[in-house]
């Protein structure tokens, strides 16, 4: 296993995802002799995990079962230990595309935070690209290094513990793209520009507040960046439901019920779990939005460094 390369079987030292059902999952470090407790009972790594195929159903001690999944940056994002607020896959996907990342790209990032975006960036630029990530919080930087080691991607990333606004990214004229997720990105624009290649590159800054965006846009313009563009992306998830709506009783005469006006209840949907389908209802499948959804994560400002 590695976060940048699929493997078929679970091995000692792997990070695997235990899937309990309906978005309930957690990561586990696979170790000989180790055990993991779940609500379905105990999983014994040596016998239940090691040597099994990723995607297998594993029966726990109480008879319940779970699936063991191969780690991906997306699953990691959903399960990682938070040390900071993190970026989720919806924002990550547009960042990756708009920064034009691909195998071989050199990327600078700050701050590293909990490493949610970092894993996705590393996945995309591997095997020939590199991520230079800067985190001013020493403990977080250390923890990120440790995770990258565990996940088999340390050769693709350099973690530097310094203040990006004061000291920059520690590299110059080598990056294809720069990403900023810091409280005052406008203070790092100059460093971002010098980290980017001479022939140009792309930059992205993530900020929750519009005032931050305004200052960033001004700084970008002053530094000669072009194609400055701010956007926001929102995810809407739908629950798939079979819904029945009752036909109101408008006091139709009893003898008239042979022609109910429109085709009600008659189309019995195949595979419907509702056996007690009553007359006078209409049933249909619907994608129902969740009751409460994320309304705002942050504004994403993109720009291009053009050659001078």
């Amino acid at each position, binding site marked *: 296993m590695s976060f940048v390369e699929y493997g078929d079987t679970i091995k000692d030292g792997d990070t695997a995802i235990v899937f309990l059902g309906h978005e309930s999952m957690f990561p586990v470090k696979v170790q000989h002799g180790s055990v993991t407790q779940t609500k379905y009972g105990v999983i014994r790594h040596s016998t239940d995990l090691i040597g099994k195929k990723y995607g297998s159903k594993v029966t726990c001690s109480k008879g319940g079962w779970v699936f063991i999944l191969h780690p991906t940056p997306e699953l990691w994002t959903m399960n990682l230990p938070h040390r900071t607020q993190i970026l989720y896959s919806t924002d990550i996907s547009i960042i990756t595309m708009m920064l034009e990342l*691909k195998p071989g790209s050199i990327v600078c990032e700050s701050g590293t935070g909990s490493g949610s975006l970092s894993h996705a960036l590393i996945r995309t630029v591997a095997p020939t690209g590199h991520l230079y990530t800067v985190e001013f919080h020493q403990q977080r930087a250390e923890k990120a290094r440790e995770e990258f080691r565990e996940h088999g991607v340390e050769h693709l990333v350099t973690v530097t513990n310094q203040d990006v606004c004061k000291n920059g990214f520690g590299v110059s004229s080598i990056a294809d793209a720069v990403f900023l997720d810091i409280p005052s990105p406008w203070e790092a624009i100059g460093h971002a520009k010098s980290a980017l290649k001479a022939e140009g590159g792309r930059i992205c800054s993530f900020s929750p507040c519009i005032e931050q965006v305004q200052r960033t846009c001004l700084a970008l313009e002053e530094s000669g960046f072009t194609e400055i563009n701010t956007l926001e992306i929102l995810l809407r998830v739908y629950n798939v439901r079979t819904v029945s709506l009752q036909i109101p009783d408008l006091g139709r005469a009893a003898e008239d019920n042979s022609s109910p006006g429109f085709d009600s209840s008659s189309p019995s949907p195949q595979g419907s779990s509702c056996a007690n389908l009553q007359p006078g209802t209409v049933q249909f499948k619907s994608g129902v939005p969740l009751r409460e959804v994320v309304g705002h994560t942050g504004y994403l400002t993109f720009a291009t460094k053009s050659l001078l």
Partner: protein
Amino acid sequence: MEGGPSARIREGDCAVLKRDEVFKAVSVLRRRKIIFEKQWFYLDNAIGHIYGTTFEVTSGGNLQPKQEVEETSTETKEAGTDNRNIVDDGKSQKLTHDDIKALKDKGIKGQEIVQQLIENSTTFRDKTEFAQDKYIKKKKKKYEAVITVVKPSTRILSTMYYAREPGKINHLRYDTLAQMLTLGNIHAGNKMIVMETCAGLVLGAVMERMGGYGSIIQMYPGGGPVRAATSCFGFPKPFFDNLHEFPLSKVQSLLSGTFSTETLPAEPEENTLVEEESNGLSEEKQSSLQEAEEEPAPEAPMDINPTEEQDTMDISAEDVEFKENKEKENKENVREKQMKQWERRKKLQEAAALLREKNADGLIVASKFHPTPLLLSLLEFVAPSRPFVVYCQYKEPLLECYTKLRERGGVINLKLSETWLRNYQVLPDRSHPKLTMSGGGGYLLSGITVVLEKDKSDSSNPEALKMEEPSSKRCKLQDLPC
């Protein structure tokens, strides 16, 4: 992989022209007239410059790198505070239509025309500073024609396609495509199955993310895969070494074990053209569509024609050997045809062998077809614990697909989703969401494959459902008045 030394515009490159927010994909050829945004020009002078260079169109359709000009905005600025005394009498601009045309015909620079328009506007000084700004911007857009030549990328091509010919890509918005690439964990080294009818845009996006590492099997309907958009990316040749294709019409026989290469589908080239045409007819913006799509295409026919012409000329010159030559040619043609067919069979066998391993690292579907049968069949070729993503322009087919996949089993973490994209204007004291936003960019159904147990179909199915849905939700479902 790419980039680096090839940062300069070279003859034969696939490039994208950009003017403001409008893009157009072209191939860079000498003495080839290009029409873009109501202007015509030649790209000859762009060759040798670095990608990202901005050019001005000069007389005779030549391009000239734009000089960075210092804005002469430091002169004493006069501006009003509100518009209470500005009356729209249609007479504020002292220059007439003909005057402006005369200026243009004289070949006067756009910048100067804008300056003249400002000087001859009686209301300009009374406008607020913001309104003046807006006025200048609008006029600049019209009269200062600058074109930037940029390197193609998924970002640029997917934005271009969505704006210019959304019908060709089933209205797949670029942020939705971005989601697909991420949800599908597309990266170097994967063995991917791609089924798309998006002109090859989705294929190109997957190829870009894989950087030439790993393999892709493109499933195609009809006689051959459509790759008009793929060719706009200008991928290096090695990227195509591990790109395979397999006809959809052979999937069932491959799954049942009766597959053979004896009956090949019709020649790819012919069918591709037919497909293109029929697509074009149903398209609202057909003209702009062809502009972008057909330009890279002519290379193939043009390569063939000159040699044929030469052949016929040779023959007419040597009349005596005419018949002999003709026979030889026929024999050669037959042999060539056989070679071609043999080649195609071999390629088909390779693709079939790759699929038979049933260990693909992911499945991407974005087509005009109903997704359910595609998913139910193609998922057979995917290894367990791998992501799959299906795009559909409409939500309803994905609702059905969701239900059918649940019945089939072997998938978890099913999610039906959509993204909204909002663009912002950010200017000092004038920041707000842009006035218009896209109404819809399609829907995605994504999930992860798991080991499919053959015997589980009936007995343990309820348990599987229970596992996917928390008990509280199931109760709610049953509580519904049904």
